[in-house]
């Protein structure tokens, strides 16, 4: 008997079968990992379970009885709760208000918050989920926001809990405590579905693991008896080298020189950036680590010209580019893989081919006398598709909106690397990608480095930071608080820098 059983689920979208005859069986009290590359169909499957999509075929059973889920309200009624990757919280409500939102107790139309408060405090204490109950959600840390999301599910007495990539935004210490919480919840009989692509985390907490690949079910395995290598092979379909072969860096001339960069925050005393100074040299990968929202975005905007800084200078290859336009920076040899591929990186309503030429459409290669050379553009896009293994429904003519996140990212990465830059600024280039794609992008970054390019990588993933970088800069509240060698620093130390608990002396 399974608490939730999804049997033979098939869900098609135009041109793709997102789920092809998938069966997922969740036992009561287990932590069940759902592993798969991007576009493998994990999110689709969970959306079916949550009632957001109606599958073409297949049935869902709860405790052996068939159930019909037509919307999130049904899911909640059946005791299914979900912590979404991007939290669904109201920022100007307090923690308490967020937790009771939607299930408020009222008496004659008046809210009864006192009972709710007691229940929330009791739950918080019982599960060790520490919260500031009266603070506005906009003012608390990401880690605490996640605890609020978990409490939301517990408050609704959900017994099936879905965690969608929950560790992406957390520090190592926070991840550790989340893992403990998950174990505790499972121990008292709740069932957890844990969507992830981080093999370490699966090994750490999960009992069983279901692997999807390209919409198909590859299998369900017992985690303790399966190695990481086996798991990744199931996921990717081939052997994956989990550790990177990295040659020694051959550091060359200075490419980027940043001095005393500051950016004010309108309406606040605190600066977004305060006196940021560092260099990036040819032939090295410098990594900016830190928890999301500590000024990394503003730093990149200042370097790439999206938002000019208030003071300080940016010099690239001996030229002062602080006030230079974005296109001129590109011509000087700066390429930029942006943090938000939907906001900056792509024009989603353009085809793959049109996005491939986004920064170069005006060059003689792609236009003559103001007319676009469609043939050239297509040929170029096809080359990019070939070289970077970009998969899409209709090749170069695919509208990028309809592509999976990983393939959208490959379009951007391919396009930027193909510009043959002197300086590559890559902001979370592997965010939301699967092991295969991450491996590929890491190799590309290393190749850039070995070819004598300067690479500035902004990443939230500590493992990525440790594995790939030649130098680590840690940002905390708009300042660089550490400049360290990855070989001489531990995860724990980095975590402390990132949380602002430690500062490198002498800066």
């Amino acid at each position, binding site marked *: 008997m399974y608490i939730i059983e999804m049997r033979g689920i098939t869900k098609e*979208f*135009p*041109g793709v079968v997102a789920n092809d005859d998938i069966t997922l069986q969740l036992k009561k009290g287990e932590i069940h990992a759902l592993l798969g590359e991007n576009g493998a169909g994990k999110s689709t499957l969970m959306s079916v379970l949550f009632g957001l999509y109606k599958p073409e075929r297949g049935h869902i059973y709860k405790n052996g009885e068939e159930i019909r889920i037509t919307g999130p309200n049904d899911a909640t009624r059946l005791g299914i709760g979900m912590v979404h990757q991007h939290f669904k919280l109201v920022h100007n409500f307090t923690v308490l208000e967020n937790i009771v939102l939607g299930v408020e107790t009222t008496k004659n139309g008046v809210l009864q918050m006192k009972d709710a408060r007691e229940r929330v405090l009791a739950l918080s204490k019982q599960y060790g989920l520490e919260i500031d109950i009266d603070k506005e959600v906009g003012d608390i840390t990401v880690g605490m926001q996640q605890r609020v999301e978990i409490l939301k599910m517990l408050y609704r007495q959900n017994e099936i809990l879905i965690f969608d990539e929950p560790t992406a935004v957390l520090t190592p210490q926070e991840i550790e405590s989340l893992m403990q919480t998950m174990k505790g919840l499972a121990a008292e009989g709740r069932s957890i579905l844990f969507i992830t692509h981080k093999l370490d985390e699966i090994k750490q907490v999960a009992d069983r693991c279901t692997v999807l690949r390209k919409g198909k079910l590859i299998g369900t395995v017992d985690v303790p008896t399966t190695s990481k290598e086996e798991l990744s092979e199931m996921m990717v379909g081939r052997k994956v080298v989990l550790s990177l072969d990295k040659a020694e860096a051959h550091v060359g001339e200075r490419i980027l020189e940043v001095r005393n960069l500051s950016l004010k925050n309108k309406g606040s005393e605190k600066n977004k950036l305060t006196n940021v100074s560092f260099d990036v040299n040819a032939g090295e990968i410098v990594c900016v680590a830190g928890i999301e929202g500590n000024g990394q975005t503003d730093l990149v905007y200042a370097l*790439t010209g*999206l938002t000019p800084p208030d003071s300080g200078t940016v010099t690239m290859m001996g030229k002062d580019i602080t006030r230079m*336009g*974005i*296109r*001129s920076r*590109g011509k000087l040899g700066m390429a*930029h893989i*942006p943090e938000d591929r939907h*906001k*900056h*990186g*792509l*024009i*989603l*309503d*353009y085809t793959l081919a*049109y996005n491939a030429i*986004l*920064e170069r*459409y*005006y060059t003689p290669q792609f*236009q003559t006398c*103001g*007319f*676009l050379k469609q043939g050239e553009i297509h040929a170029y896009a096809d080359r990019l598709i070939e070289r970077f293994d970009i998969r899409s*429904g*209709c090749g170069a*003519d695919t*509208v990028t*909106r*309809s592509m999976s996140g990983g393939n959208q990212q490959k379009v951007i990465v391919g396009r930027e690397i193909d510009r043959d830059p002197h300086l590559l600024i890559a902001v979370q280039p592997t965010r939301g990608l699967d092991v295969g794609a991450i491996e590929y992008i890491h190799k590309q970054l290393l190749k850039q480095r070995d070819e004598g390019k300067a690479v500035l990588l902004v990443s939230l993933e500590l493992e990525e930071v440790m594995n790939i970088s030649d130098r680590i800069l840690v940002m905390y509240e708009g300042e660089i608080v550490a400049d360290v060698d990855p070989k001489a620093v531990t995860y724990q130390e980095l975590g402390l820098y990132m949380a602002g608990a430690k500062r490198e002396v002498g800066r």
Partner: protein
Amino acid sequence: MKKRRFSGESGLSVLSSGVAVIAGLVVGLIILLITDASQAFPAFRSILTFGLQSSRNFGEVLFFATPIILTGLSVGFAYKTGLFNIGASGQFTFGAYVAIYIGVEATFLPPAIRIIASLLGAMLAGALWAAIPGLLKAYRNVHEVISCIMTNWIGIFLVNWLILNTIFDAMRNSTRHVPVDANMPGWGLGAFFQGDALRPSSVNSGIIVAIVAAILVYIILEKTKFGYELKACGFNQNAAKYAGINEKRNIIFSMMISGALAGLAGALHFLSGAGITMNVANVLAPQGFTGISVALLGLNNPIGIIFAGILIAYLHLGGFQMQLFGFVPEIIEIVIAVIIYFCAFVLLIKLFFANRAKRAPLPDPPVSAGPPPGEGMDPPPDER
């Protein structure tokens, strides 16, 4: 594969536009039945058939279609680039004034040159008038809908004042007549569409200008580097900026081109040789707003806009004939408005067909799940 996808997609557009028109006609008929059941059917027949009863009538349809095709292009072009130009009315009025002024006053120019000068002057006037909301949007982030509405009214009053002080004909409370030889030439079109009446219809070379303009707009948007930039700004201003495109400049250019098209509409309307002059009245030019319907019905596609403009002109002309059956103009306007209103549902209907086609077990499913973006009826989203 590529070809089929394309034909499937545009087939769907034509189908949904057709259904929208038919639904609108049915509701229009119901209103007629409620108002006066005995005359409803003959009146309705006149809406449906009048435009085709003789070639002369069709010539009139083309004559009425000329300005609204251009205002439709004006709105549609702006929409493709992410702007909602509700100010076509004011740009139309400004263009019309400059065209008439040149036609009346620039007698030192030979007629053929004067016509060209009128058209160019009208386009320039429309462009400059539209540049104001463009500049405000680009540099002050003022939403173009607000500033366009304001420039509409400012335009009307300014033009009234200009007429009173320059080319005013006090007898008729309007502008003076443009001499016949400074109007758009007929190129035999009026005689070609004259039917049995032995009296040429008002259609003239203006309709050719409108169609050429539509084709040019199509080429600019789909084939050129400039169109690539403009649409990029329209779809995603942030990504356009990231790509090094000067998005402020593009907003201004886009508004100016849009305004030039509306200004040209004004010129062609008043230089048609049909003896229309511009009255001094505090009324916004309706062609500017009809242009919004035309653009919607044509799904913002320049070629679709040509047909949408002709269709709406056809309905208007047939509608006028309903007066013969005792319907007051207000009811006629309501019926036409209802039809146009239904046309706005075209996207909804398209979505419906797209979903049905998706569900049906077709070997070759349509590619787009939703309506193609950038062809919506909502004003384009402001930058987030």
